[in-house]
């Protein structure tokens, strides 16, 4: 991959992988009946970081959440910075949650055509010496309404992440919602 004229400190939005270091692991697209939850399981430990790219929407005023290794305990923390246009913005945090909120204010505008984008980075997911850190940029715009969120999250567990579950809270992801998991390798 060519070296680009980008100031390194400004490349904070997403991980940027050299050629051959960014692999597609699995992809799921929701069918006509919708789906209440998406799960990636048997994730290999051979990468350094994971990235999930979501293009999804929910059929109610709910936001997707994130859990690891089927842990539903109060082992998650998170912070969000959001903007809803019209000068409305703010921040929120929570501790001892049972999941990481990928969208505190929900993405459920019940639209069959306007989907939210998410780019979620999960750092050092296989490292058994540290808790797991998540960073996400997500947003949806519907020509008159919309919101944008920066999300950070922590799973207070040193176990390697082998499965990821993304429930639609108490609702369902609509048809054509797609979820792609990628593995990002580190250098030697």
């Amino acid at each position, binding site marked *: 991959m060519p070296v680009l004229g980008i100031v390194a400190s400004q*490349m904070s939005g997403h991980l940027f992988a050299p*050629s051959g270091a960014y692999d597609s692991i699995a992809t799921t697209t929701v069918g006509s009946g919708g789906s209440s939850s998406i799960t990636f399981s048997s994730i290999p430990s051979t990468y350094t970081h994971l990235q999930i790219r979501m293009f999804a929407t929910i059929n109610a005023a709910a936001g997707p959440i994130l859990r690891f290794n089927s842990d539903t305990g109060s082992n998650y923390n998170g912070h969000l910075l*959001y903007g809803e246009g*019209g000068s409305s913005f703010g921040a929120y945090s929570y501790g001892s949650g049972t999941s990481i909120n990928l969208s505190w204010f929900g993405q459920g505008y019940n639209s069959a*055509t306007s989907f939210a984008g998410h780019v979620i980075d999960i750092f050092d997911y296989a490292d058994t010496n540290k808790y797991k850190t998540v960073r996400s*940029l997500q947003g*949806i*715009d519907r020509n008159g309404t919309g919101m944008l969120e920066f999300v950070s999250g922590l799973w207070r567990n040193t176990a390697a992440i082998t499965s990821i579950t993304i429930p639609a809270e108490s609702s369902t992801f609509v048809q*054509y919602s*797609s979820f792609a998991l990628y593995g990002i390798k580190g250098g030697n």
Partner: protein
Amino acid sequence: MAAGNTYVAIATQTLGSAAATIDFTSIPSTYTDLFIAVNCGPTSSGGQDLRIRFNSDTGTNYSVTILRGVTGGLVLSSRYSTQTFIYLDVSGGVSNALTSSYNVNVMNYANTTTYKTVLSRFGDVGSTNTNAATEAEVGLWRSTAAITSISLSYGSGNIMTGSTASLYGIAAA
């Protein structure tokens, strides 16, 4: 589980002279998402906002919601509906300086069922502190057509010499 290299450089453009637009055309539909890395500056004084259009559509089919932080500790959020483009920034780049950088994600760009969503980050370190800003944008193109071309431009003036834009395709298993 499938695996393989899926982050592919499609094209890179470096402007040898100032130009009104940077265009990527004949984009293959074989990827899931597109990613564009841009470093550029405007030739016009007073700061110009970079915009993105798809498939040469100049209709009022675009909208964007923005969150940004600017010099002085200000945090702002704004929305622009029924536009003829998506703003990739609203702070404005410094004229004749290559200090504006963008990461642009075009999600599910080839699907023909849904509208298209853009997630973007912008930063400009500025020639002085008064020019510094960081932004994030979520944009919508209200079209179900597959994206086959992308155009970047400023509101007026040109994109300056030395500006670069690289287009990548991200495929899914």
